């Protein structure tokens, strides 16, 4: 999981380094343990740190640049004539050396599932989203001054630019000072990542042909249809599960409450590397609001369940604050299989839903009941039947 961005100014009076910096902050929910940029000012200038974009100390200058935030320390790649950032899995990155000479052929020969943004030493920005469409990529501009490519439109918005459109699966974009070309290199397959819809993307995003907030509210409504529960309050786990709670509350008429508040900056529990951090993360992150849950039958909604550890803590803290019952709803179908495309879904043996029955899971996490959004419901809400649900069914659209 990663966020990538590229910015090219048509006039060299601009220094784009701060634009990259803030765009990356707008993408750090996609992964943040390593971040870096490459700036072009005649020569490539590379800067990378084992930190989130926010904490990066960026000094370089350039009229064009690319940036990366994610868990791979290898990015940005810098070769002699080209620098590249990748979201996803690219199996033959060495081929990228030939990108400036023959972009079309090189991109067609890349193997994996990915989106990328490259910057050539000559000053062209090349963006490509592979035909699966597993990784998002959006094209935008800033006034008459810059072209911008980013994983999500929100990164373009935070720097004051305007997102124009999503790059289609299989489409290549070349941004030159004197022209912008786009070409479909492969037939799009629209295997959009279900995880991007369900919790990866920001709610102010428009990703994979859908408005994320509206879609997640509809998931909440779908949950209400599939699993109506007698409860007194609906509580979403911040931040990603809040729209589910809004939808569930809207559909059932059960009031919504803010059951948790956050301590410290938003660290994505699922992205934390070891389990100790996860426990500390969740405790630091979420403090229960007692008056919201005391004496109530709580319908708790979360976005996903991996090992169940996070949820166990969450349920426990609700009970300690006086919840009478805790019914857990998950806004995505069960995660039962790994992701070969770089999303942090562990292998089956580490996934609670792949190993235990619903009753067992409810007991482990201490909930009165547990329910996952059905696969059918997910398809219904998203409305695109080619999406990738590999981690939910163990069958994958693209062989790696």
């Amino acid at each position, binding site marked *: 999981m990663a966020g990538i961005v590229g910015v090219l100014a048509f006039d060299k009076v601009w220094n784009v380094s*701060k634009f990259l910096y*803030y765009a990356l902050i707008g993408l750090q929910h996609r992964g943040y343990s390593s971040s870096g940029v490459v700036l072009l000012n005649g020569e490539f200038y590379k800067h990378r740190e084992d930190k989130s974009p926010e904490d990066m100390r960026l000094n370089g200058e350039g009229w064009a640049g690319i940036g990366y935030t994610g868990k791979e320390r290898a990015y940005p790649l810098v070769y002699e004539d080209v620098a590249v950032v990748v979201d996803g899995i690219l199996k033959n990155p060495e081929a990228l050396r030939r990108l400036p000479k023959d972009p079309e052929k090189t991109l067609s020969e890349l193997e994996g599932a990915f989106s990328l943004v490259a910057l050539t030493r000559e000053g062209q920005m090349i963006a490509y989203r592979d035909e699966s469409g597993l990784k998002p990529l959006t094209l935008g501009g800033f*006034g008459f001054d810059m072209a911008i490519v980013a994983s999500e439109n929100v990164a373009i918005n935070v720097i004051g630019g305007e997102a124009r459109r999503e790059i289609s699966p299989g489409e290549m974009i070349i941004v030159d000072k004197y022209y*912008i070309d786009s070409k479909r290199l492969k037939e799009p397959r629209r295997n959009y990542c279900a995880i991007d819809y369900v919790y990866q993307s920001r709610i102010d995003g428009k990703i994979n042909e859908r408005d994320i907030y509206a879609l997640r509210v509809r998931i909440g409504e779908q949950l209400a249809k599939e699993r109506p529960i007698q409860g007194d309050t609906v509580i979403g786990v911040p931040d990603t599960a809040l729209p589910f709670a809004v939808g569930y509350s809207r559909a059932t008429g059960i009031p919504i409450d803010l059951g948790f508040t956050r301590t410290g900056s938003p660290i994505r529990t699922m992205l934390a590397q070891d389990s100790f951090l996860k426990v500390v993360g969740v405790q630091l992150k979420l403090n229960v609001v007692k008056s919201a849950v005391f004496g109530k039958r709580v319908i708790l909604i979360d976005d996903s369940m991996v090992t169940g550890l996070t949820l166990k803590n969450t349920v426990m803290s609700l009970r300690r604050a006086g919840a009478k019952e805790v019914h857990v709803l998950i806004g995505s179908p069960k995660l039962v299989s790994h992701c070969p495309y770089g999303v942090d879904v562990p292998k089956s043996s580490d996934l609670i839903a792949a190993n235990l029955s619903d009753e067992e899971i409810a007991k482990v996490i201490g909930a009165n009941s547990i329910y996952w959004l059905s696969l059918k419901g997910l398809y219904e809400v998203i409305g695109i039947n080619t999406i990738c649900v590999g981690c939910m069914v163990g069958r994958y659209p693209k062989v790696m």
Partner: protein
Amino acid sequence: MKVLLIGDGARENSLAFSIAKSGRYQLYAFSSYVNPGIKENVDKTNGKYFVGDILSKDEVKRVISQVSPDFGVIGPEDPLFNGAADAFREEGIPVVGPSSKASTIEKSKVWMRNLMWKYNIPGRLRYRAFNNLADAAKFVEEYGGSIAIKPSEQVGGKGVKVVADIQAYLSQEKRRAASRSVDEIGRLVKDEVKIIIEEKVDGPEYTLHVLTDGRSFLPLPLAQDYKHAYQDGIGPETGGMGSISGPGYTLPFIDEDEYKATFEIVKQTAEAIKKETGDEYVGFISGQMMLTELWGPTVIEFYSRLGDPEASAIVPRITSDFGEILELAATGKLNKAKLEVDPRPSIVRAIAPLGYPLNRDLAKGKEISLDLPKMKEIGCQAFFGAISLYGGKLITTGSRALELVAIDDTYEGAVKKLDLCTSLVSSNTKLIYRTDIGRTIEEQVEKAEIVRYSYKDRIKRGVLGASMDWSPNGGLW
């Protein structure tokens, strides 16, 4: 009857086409190079083509005396600024085109804004004028809000514009780039007032062209111009890479009331110009508008002529005799004009050689060829812009070379025709054009709806057009 047309671009080509189509006129033209499209219409009507310096009032007079036309039509703004229309009137010949004084409405942005405030014309924006760049830069520093920085008068044909849309955390970068550009822009301006800074507004843009003889006003169908050089509305500012018009008199994202309000603004402005200069305004006056949350219809700038490439979208839709309408405007009988318009929408796609607009030298001197008969078969019309007939070849002169126009029942249909016709143009350089024009109607409808919520709310609250900024040192603006 003899008509003398001044100008050399695609807009003049479209005017030449409609004058020749009338069948009542012999077309004479005066251009700075031989535009093959204008030439075709001159030849067809047994007129004569003159080439020379159209920016020189004396040269224009010389051509007038050779042709002794019954009336004249002036296409571009620069000859108007230099008194081309005055040259006609001094010889007692009626002409479509305002006097040099009246064309100040386009030439000077400060004069224009000042006029709008003085006469309380709706759709006006707050502005500040600066004689020196240091003061302008200081003002930019002081008022953090979103502003547009423009040269106080037209420089080099295009209105260079920098917008400082200031996100707090990016303000340094944006201001630094803005102040560097202020220097660049300001150096080119000859007037005492160098820079004008306006409050920045947002929303969908459109143009209303109004033809007037000073007494009657004839509004044309709306058009929308696309300024970004490259596909998807990205890239540097150009004179316009294409335009759309229709269906009917409005656009899908501008409603009837907004059309009427815009017409009222343009009319009031023409009347104010007359009061201010003493000159009857005869010719086109065109509001380059934006639908904003502040006013609804808001003036970004005025043209003292037809827009280019807007003209190429509008003129082919006119089914009545446009040549005659021009004559009636020139001779003060516009109230007799009958304008009939094809209700179907049109799209213009401009085609430019690689290098436009950032490197004109790169864009110059390239060869272009096109299959006109086949285009006609498909249903496209081609107007020639910055392209000169030289030794039997079509040679680019550095700007937008061609404008292709298609009319169809729907925008989708017109776009498809243009896609086919674009493939019939070839060159020894890469060609730059936008295939997204006419394909973004829905987004613009939504954009318009968003600003409409706000400006209608302003009407309800009685604060339409009211806005101000404050800074600790500068006070209220």
